[in-house]
């Protein structure tokens, strides 16, 4: 402090003291020695302002420093602990070791206006390719020994063939569907749908670590779990109409999957949320759970679905395809077709139900872009495909892969094999098993 400052400070102090004494003194006079004492004390205190400030700041800094240190320690501890938590690769490794799985599946379908429809299933899976799901009549049935069941679905899957039996106890009726997968290529690329009846945990191994995101930790049934979020390839789902977002929670220490949830919008615009909980891995299962047996006296409806995957297949020379808005010049012609990639036929023998026949074609990128641009600019315009000047059909543009279009050709009344023979450059050999 300079001399000038000290002088100013002293005169200011004296002025303040006099004003205080005048205001606060009830008696006419205060003894001079008392005034001098107060003045000296005030001067003494005023002469050491820095040391007083330093002392008070120190008191403020200590708790702050302690808090920061504690936070740092906690962060280090948390990080160290997290780094020990399972990684996606660990989860996949655990899934590789799975042979059986049981769980509860809860499916919430926000169908139309009003409350969402919720269904509860008990699900069983066993390698290779066996699954069973039981739909309860009501949630109250979940916890009783002999629950009333609305639907039992049993699925036995092999490489190129699948048998699906649906039993409806209330109606004493069974639906038996046989699905056959064929290709003219070297191998099938078919991936079974991931749904309540056919969750295939091996499919999760197709999700690479870089496609997942850690979403934190939480307790599930008293077990600490680590969460991963990722987008499921849409071709896993038959009816998904947009992004399929999944969350998978695995045990923090052992990597066992504890909870799976996925959400998507189906082709009807309904939001579907599926949760798998109470998951038990590698528990022994009764073999007869997967027997394809229809109880005596029940009626049976049979259907056969044939799915064909085509490689290097196109339309025969002279075939004409034109796709575009109704009554206007086509945006896509035969030359824009990169290939015929898929065919599907559903038949129901012994019924009057006509076969469903559908084919899927892939377009060249520039043709896809033309269609997309037009559809974006004219959202209400109906796109129509003229199939070889024989029939006009509306292509489905909502397939998982944006470069493909599919057509329902049921009205032609031709089987898939007949369509191949007439219009495709290759056919698939069909051998009855």
């Amino acid at each position: 402090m300079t001399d000038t400052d000290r002088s100013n400070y002293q005169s200011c102090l004296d002025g303040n003291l006099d004003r205080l004494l005048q205001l606060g003194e009830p008696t006419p006079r205060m003894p001079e020695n008392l005034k001098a004492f107060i003045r000296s004390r005030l001067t003494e205190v005023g002469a050491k302002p820095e040391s007083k400030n330093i002392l008070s700041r120190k008191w403020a800094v200590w708790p702050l420093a302690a808090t920061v240190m504690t936070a740092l320690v906690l962060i280090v501890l948390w990080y160290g602990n997290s780094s020990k938590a399972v990684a996606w690769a660990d989860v996949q490794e655990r899934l590789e070791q799975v042979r059986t799985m049981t769980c509860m599946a809860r499916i919430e379908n926000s169908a139309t206006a009003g409350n969402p429809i919720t269904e509860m299933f008990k699900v069983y899976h066993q390698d290779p390719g066996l699954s069973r799901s039981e739909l309860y009549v009501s949630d109250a049935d979940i916890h009783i020994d002999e629950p009333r069941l609305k639907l039992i679905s049993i699925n036995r899957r092999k490489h190129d063939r699948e048998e699906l039996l649906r039993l409806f106890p209330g109606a004493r009726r069974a639906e038996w569907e046989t699905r056959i997968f064929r290709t003219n290529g070297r191998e099938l690329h078919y991936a079974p749908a991931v749904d309540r009846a056919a969750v295939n945990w091996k499919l999760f191994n197709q999700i690479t670590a870089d496609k997942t995101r850690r979403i934190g930790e939480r307790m599930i049934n008293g077990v600490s779990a680590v969460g991963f979020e990722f987008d499921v390839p849409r071709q896993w789902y038959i009816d998904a109409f947009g992004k399929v977002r999944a969350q998978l929670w695995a045990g923090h220490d052992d990597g066992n999957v504890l909870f799976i949830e996925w959400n998507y919008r189906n082709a009807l615009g309904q939001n579907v949320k599926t949760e798998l909980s109470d998951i038990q891995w590698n528990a022994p299962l009764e073999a007869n759970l997967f027997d394809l047996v229809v109880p005596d006296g029940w009626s049976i409806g049979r259907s056969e679905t044939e799915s064909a995957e085509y490689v290097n297949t196109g339309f025969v020379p002279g075939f004409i395809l034109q796709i575009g808005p109704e009554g206007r010049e086509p945006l896509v012609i035969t030359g824009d077709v990169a290939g015929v990639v898929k065919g599907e036929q559903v038949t129901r023998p012994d019924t009057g139900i006509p076969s469903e026949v559908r084919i899927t074609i892939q377009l060249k990128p520039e043709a896809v872009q033309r269609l997309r641009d037009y559809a974006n600019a004219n959202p209400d315009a109906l796109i129509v495909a003229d199939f070889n000047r024989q029939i006009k059909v509306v292509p489905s543009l909502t397939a998982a892969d944006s470069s493909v279009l599919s057509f329902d050709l049921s009205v032609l009344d031709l089987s898939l094999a007949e369509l191949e023979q007439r219009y495709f450059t290759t056919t698939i050999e069909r051998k009855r098993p």
Partner: protein
Amino acid sequence: MTIHRKTKKQYLTICAFLVLAALFTTALSAAGLSGDQPRRIRFELRLASYEKMDGWKSVPGPYAAKTDIWISPEAALTNAELARAWPQPDGDGFSVGFLLTEEGALKLARLTKSHVGEFVALMLDGRVVSAPKIMAEITGGRAFIQGKLNEEEARSIAEGITVK
């Protein structure tokens, strides 16, 4: 004796007639031309709304609640656009599946594309049996009339709506 012979002859004639009649009826029945043809059921699909619409007609809605529903004055689809219909297994009951003609399929696609989020009324003989919401464009010309039916009911409707 003469009378007896005559009576015998008459009996033979009647028997022969009955046998011929039975054969004729069987043949007609096999050809689907008997008098037991299914009764024709009028099928219509119209735009519908649960809110009052000017120029639209209010009729009892579907299901047990019978809430009134307003239906468009024009039918978007009628029996003429139905190519085939059949009883379709549907969960623990049956519905009526139908396949539209080429023109019918285009009409349904046009209607559903431009009215997503709205309702359609499926009507049989002027009565609304279901009123689903249009969730997306329907391509392919294949649809269902749902209504917790048994197989016989579904078959009867399927046959009735496709009588030409």
